[in-house]
């Protein structure tokens, strides 16, 4: 414990030098910007800035790059809440209730809760990394393909909880999402599946394209189809910041979200994306009024946003302790370290303690800066909603198209998003929800990948999923959750049968 404070002290002394505070600020600022701009993600931004960082000292460079990453998570929630465009997989959940809150005139409250929740989560996650980062690494290593597959199955079961309408429709959407995730080259044989010979589909559908289509563009179609509703959004602003009472009501959700996000962030293969979904499912499960979820419940924003930010932070653990990048951004950080002549791996903590602890301490400073940058911005963002929609939506579309084009410099991606926008609009008309589809899509990729890896290793024996204790445990939780979800439906239909009789 004393060690930890000594180490954090060392870290703060590094992170608080004028240079590093400056780099941290620049990183957070750029991050917020790329987060707010739909489609422009931290991966593209960091890789473009990579050559620039060569001229900097390694600690400053990494502090800046890290700032871009978690800064983008803050910024991403802004667009999700205001215009229902989740730029990142993790912001999908925020958009669900966050945008509904904005429609009710509570955009300020939603943005405030997101920022404050993220700050609390970031602070706790920083301490988690410093205190138990090394033991937590082992948790990530326990998850081989079989265990990971079972975790995904559990995730899919929880996905059912995300829906607030018909159970059957939710399951249909999840399966549709899983199916869409299968588009593209087969990972084992390289053979193209469901691509219709189109080059742009050969690597599968980009998540950003899907999200921007079925959420962002569909939302615009919805608003244009229904002019009365959208005027309500822009006439009422509401308070800008949450009151103490509102904070107290949400602190539980924030803390639970932080816990879930911190654990899932350590998992390989971008486990952090599961955090917000899991947090949402949990909040809905323990809420006294689960039927309100999806209509603008503050806890449904505070929890997932905290999980999101905590996960973004703890995903640095495998990178810092083993040199293993759990996602594309961390892979870039490895690249940045290598080019600077720092070998990522277990030795970093001994050989470059300044860098290791400086980076960790800078995360906390960065989170503080993000709150300071973001809270005063809320007023500005909310004012944006007062801009007449006929002027606002063309600029949203334009920004989306720029972002979509920048993914692979391919106009076809923009067209695909437009097409998916129509699909999203049709789904809305038919009262299907897009969120379970998005989750099915996100989980589907990992689900297939891990299933096939596990079966190659086990020579095709399905027993591998139950002989591993961890895997069996996760499947059991999934089975119980499924039972709990289905039982009321069964009971209700049975009651109806009895009523009829």
């Amino acid at each position, binding site marked *: 414990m004393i060690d930890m404070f000594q180490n954090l002290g060392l870290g703060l002394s590094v992170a608080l030098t004028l240079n590093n505070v400056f780099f941290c600020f620049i990183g957070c600022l750029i991050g917020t910007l790329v987060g707010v701009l739909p489609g422009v993600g931290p*991966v*593209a931004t*960091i*890789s*473009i800035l*990579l*050559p620039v960082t*060569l001229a900097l000292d390694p600690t400053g460079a990494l502090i800046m790059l890290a700032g871009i990453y978690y800064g983008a998570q803050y910024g991403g929630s802004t667009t999700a809440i205001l215009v229902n465009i989740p730029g990142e997989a993790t912001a999908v959940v925020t958009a669900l209730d966050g945008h509904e809150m904005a429609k009710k005139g509570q955009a300020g409250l939603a943005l405030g809760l997101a920022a404050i929740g993220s700050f609390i989560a970031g602070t706790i996650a920083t301490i988690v990394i410093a205190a138990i980062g090394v033991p937590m690494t082992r948790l*990530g*290593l*326990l*998850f*081989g*393909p079989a265990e990971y597959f079972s975790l995904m199955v559990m995730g899919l079961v929880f996905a059912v909880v995300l829906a607030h309408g018909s159970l059957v429709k939710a399951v249909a959407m999840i399966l549709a999402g899983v199916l869409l995730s299968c588009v593209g*080259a087969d*990972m*084992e*044989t*390289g*053979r*193209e599946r469901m691509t219709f010979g189109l*080059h*742009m589909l*050969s*690597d599968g559908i980009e998540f950003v394209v899907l999200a921007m289509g079925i959420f962002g563009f569909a939302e615009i179609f919805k608003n244009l189809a229904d002019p009365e509703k959208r005027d309500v959004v822009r006439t009422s602003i509401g308070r800008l910041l949450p009151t103490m009472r509102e904070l107290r009501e949400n602190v539980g959700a924030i803390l639970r979200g932080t816990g879930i996000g911190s654990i899932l962030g350590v998992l*390989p*293969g971008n486990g952090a994306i599961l955090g917000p979904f899991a947090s949402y499912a949990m909040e809905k499960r323990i809420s006294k009024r689960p039927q309100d979820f999806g209509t603008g419940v503050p806890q449904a924003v505070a929890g997932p946003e905290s999980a999101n930010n905590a996960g973004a932070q703890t995903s640095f653990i*495998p990178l810092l302790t*083993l*040199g*293993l*990048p*759990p996602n*594309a*951004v*961390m*892979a*870039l950080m*490895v*690249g940045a370290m*290598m*080019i*600077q*002549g720092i*070998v*990522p*791996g*277990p*030795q*970093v903590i001994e050989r470059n303690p300044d860098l290791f602890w400086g980076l960790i301490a800078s995360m906390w400073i960065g989170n503080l800066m993000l709150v300071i940058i973001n809270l005063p911005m809320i007023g500005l963002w909310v004012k944006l909603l007062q801009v007449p929609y006929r002027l606002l939506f063309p600029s949203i579309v334009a920004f989306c198209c720029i972002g979509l084009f920048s993914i*692979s*410099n*391919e106009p076809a991606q923009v067209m695909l998003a437009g097409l998916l926008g129509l699909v999203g609009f049709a789904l809305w008309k038919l009262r299907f929800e897009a969120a379970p589809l998005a989750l099915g899509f996100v989980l589907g990729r990992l689900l297939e*990948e891990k299933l096939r*890896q596990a079966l*190659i*290793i086990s020579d095709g024996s399905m027993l591998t999923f139950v002989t591993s204790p961890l895997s069996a445990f996760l499947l059991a939780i999934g089975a119980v959750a499924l039972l709990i979800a289905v039982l009321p439906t069964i009971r209700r239909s049975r009651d109806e049968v009895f009523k009829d009789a």
Partner: protein
Amino acid sequence: MLKNITRRSALLAGLAMMSAVALPAAAQDYPSKPVTLVVSYAAGGGTDAIARVFAARLETALGGRVIVENRPGAAANIGTDVVASADPDGYTLLVGNQGPMVVNPHIFNLKNDPAEALDPIAMIADASLVVVVGPRLAVKTMEEFLAKAKEGELIYGSAGNASASHVATLLLGQTADIALKHVPYKGAGPAVNDLVGGHIDFMVTTIPSVIGLVGDGTLTALAVTGTERFPELPDVPTVAEAGVPGYSASAWYGVLGPKGLPEDVRARLTAATAETLSDPEFVAKLRNDGGVPSTLSGQAFADFMASERARWGEVVESAGIKVE
């Protein structure tokens, strides 16, 4: 009349001047607008990182803007097509590696054959791979590894189907005559994770992806795949030294343009690449990333690619990898 004469002589003088400097003029003008360096992978990969650092140095050497453009997709074949169909004016170039350049022609029905549609300018770097084992397979040397492999099928992870890490392992299996089981991953990162976690036996992967874990003893490096030992791992033999004679494999990167580059532009690019590769700072960055700067250019680079293509063709064909 006088006016006419002056005009005509001015014109003649102008023409004379132009013809006198015609050849160097084009090269001197080049680059008169930004040069696009196409990378066939999404931002954030190994090739992308090398390309961006290279582009930054090339700007100085060429004295003009060099922009990296990511054109990912279709197993890196889209990037090849983009450059193959661009104007051969030196303003659209490709950073190619062994995957799309010499392995893919054997696996896919390509729209553009890189050997015919592209003009090799110069190779940038050559990076050896390394054979590493994790806690699941507790062997310390290549000899022990080969003995274990004769006993039963070992499981290896790769960075993906037909990746350098995959084909290099296939070659190892074929050369050493051992049966191996392939588990494809999406990138080296998750595969290394499962190697450390003890879910797979071994990997043949890029040195930067595992060197930290080797240094700390989490993973054991058995051998490097190149023809020479790697300076940072002086005690680790080459695969050929350690009992698999004749084996060598490496991941390499080079710059190519569309077929039919003007000779002067090509000369300018060759010189600029050579200048970049002699910059000690750039070389240091390459070495940090596990790469050795190359001296191959023009025809020598083309010959190298042809021999690589023939070699890997045999490997993937006997392994039966083919996408219809």
